């Protein structure tokens, strides 16, 4: 006997709903579980104090500062380079061997596990360039790591800008540079912004690569050449070494909230930018 089309339809719809619900459910469970265990310990003091006795006591202020430094600097370095590369690939050169090589390289980089970037950063920035375990070393390593994401998302956003805008701009006598900066980038901004936000999120939550490059100093970093432990690494250390599970969950909660805040404000900003042109 065959199932009636209607039944198949209903069954497949149900299955899909179920799978979607399961996906969201798992995600929600993880977040709620962590926040439930962590939020009660996230007090004002936790956010504004330095850790004491390896993090068993005290707060995570140096980690918040360190994370902001490392992730912020990484994106500040990677975004201009990545966007410029994307502009070069799309607007300044015809498809050829060079673009293929750059794109292939970017795709390869995107598939490499972060610990390898960490190792590279350790050997290159920390040792060879003598930057030591520091915020700059970590930021540069993360910049290399997120570069492919920024290049590819920017490239796609730029390609999606209608050709007509370019024709009109040239038709009005603009140079290519004026066309790129005033029309193409403005139209592609929401897409480029999405790639940058993804990169910020990845930088904030990266652990392996920063462990080997930014180090795990507990003090408040004073300059970009100080070593600094990020939130993700602190969380890893607290739980891995069994120092304090409540503080580990609290740190994870701060991390989750930070990522949420970055995404929400970026989303809001992007809506405003897009609204300016629509």
């Amino acid at each position, binding site marked *: 006997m065959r199932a009636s089309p209607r039944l198949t339809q209903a069954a497949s719809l149900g299955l899909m709903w179920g799978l979607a619900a399961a996906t969201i459910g798992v995600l929600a469970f993880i977040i709620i579980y962590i926040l439930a265990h962590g939020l009660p310990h996230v007090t004002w003091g936790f956010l504004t104090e330095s850790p004491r006795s390896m993090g068993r006591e005290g707060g995570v202020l140096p980690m918040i500062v360190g994370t902001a430094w490392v992730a912020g600097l990484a994106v500040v370095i990677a975004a201009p380079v990545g966007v410029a590369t994307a502009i070069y690939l799309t607007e300044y050169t015809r498809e050829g061997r060079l673009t293929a090589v750059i794109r292939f390289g970017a795709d390869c980089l995107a598939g490499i596990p972060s610990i390898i970037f960490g190792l590279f950063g350790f050997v290159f920035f920390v040792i060879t360039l003598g930057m030591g375990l520091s915020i700059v070393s970590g930021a540069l390593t993360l910049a290399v790591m997120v570069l492919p994401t920024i290049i590819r998302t920017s490239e796609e956003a730029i390609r999606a800008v*209608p050709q007509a805008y370019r024709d009109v701009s*040239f038709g*009005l006598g603009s140079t290519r540079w004026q066309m790129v900066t005033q029309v193409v980038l403005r139209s592609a901004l929401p897409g480029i912004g999405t790639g940058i936000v993804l990169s910020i999120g990845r930088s904030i939550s990266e652990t392996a690569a920063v462990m080997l490059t930014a180090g795990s100093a507990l003090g408040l970093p004073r300059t970009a050449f100080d070593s600094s432990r990020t939130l993700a690494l602190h969380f890893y250390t607290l739980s891995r070494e069994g120092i304090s599970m409540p503080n580990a969950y609290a740190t994870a909660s701060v991390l989750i909230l930070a990522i949420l805040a970055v995404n929400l404000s970026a989303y809001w900003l992007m809506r405003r930018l897009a609204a300016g042109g629509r």
Partner: protein
Amino acid sequence: MEYKLRTENLGLHYGDFCALKDVNISIRPQAITAIIGPSGCGKSTLLRCFNRMNELIAGVRTSGRILLDGRAVHDGAAGLTQLRKRVGMVFQRPNPFPLSVFDNVAYGPRVHGMHKGADLEAAVEKALRATALWDALKDKLRAPALGLPAEQQQRLCISRLAAVEPEVLLMDEPCSALDPIATEHIEELMRELARRYTIVIVTHNMQQAARVSSETGFMLLGELVEFGLTTAIFKNPSDKRTEDYVTGRYG
């Protein structure tokens, strides 16, 4: 007779494909010249030669000469910006930038180095007046251009062009994305603009060519088959192929 634009044995290849062959056309100043012909005959290609937009496409080769005010529109980057400033193009679909009304019109002046607020505002107002948009939009200068109705968008595109004070307006089927009433309005605007500008319009709408233009060229397979007064082309064509086309025997 004075001519604004003139081609001498103009030819163009897209790779191996010959899109224009020995085109000789002379465009009068302050008049509307229409180019008609079936789809794919090279009308847009010819239009794009006038402001050298074809050069953006890979594999394009041209031969012959184009004269603007009797002087050759030369090759190379020199004079390209100047040429595009003098010879502007309106496209088939209204395509304002995703910017505000003001920024759209101010785009050209800014590109050419006008940044002073007062000058810029005056230029924008003048350009919007030229297309009779000022009264409708003077309170909406900060509104996004893509939110305007299609006809206003196309007018805005013409304003954007007018703001760089060109001498020649190239219009590539400027009404094909508009409804009949909007089309009528744009045609009226064209007649108005023809007092100051030299207009070349490509259209596959023969009634439109008959309504607005004083001279018409008929193209077929990359050749300019016939060129002359619009009345003559439509009432009394000398070439059999033109006659077939204007009486509706081609599509």
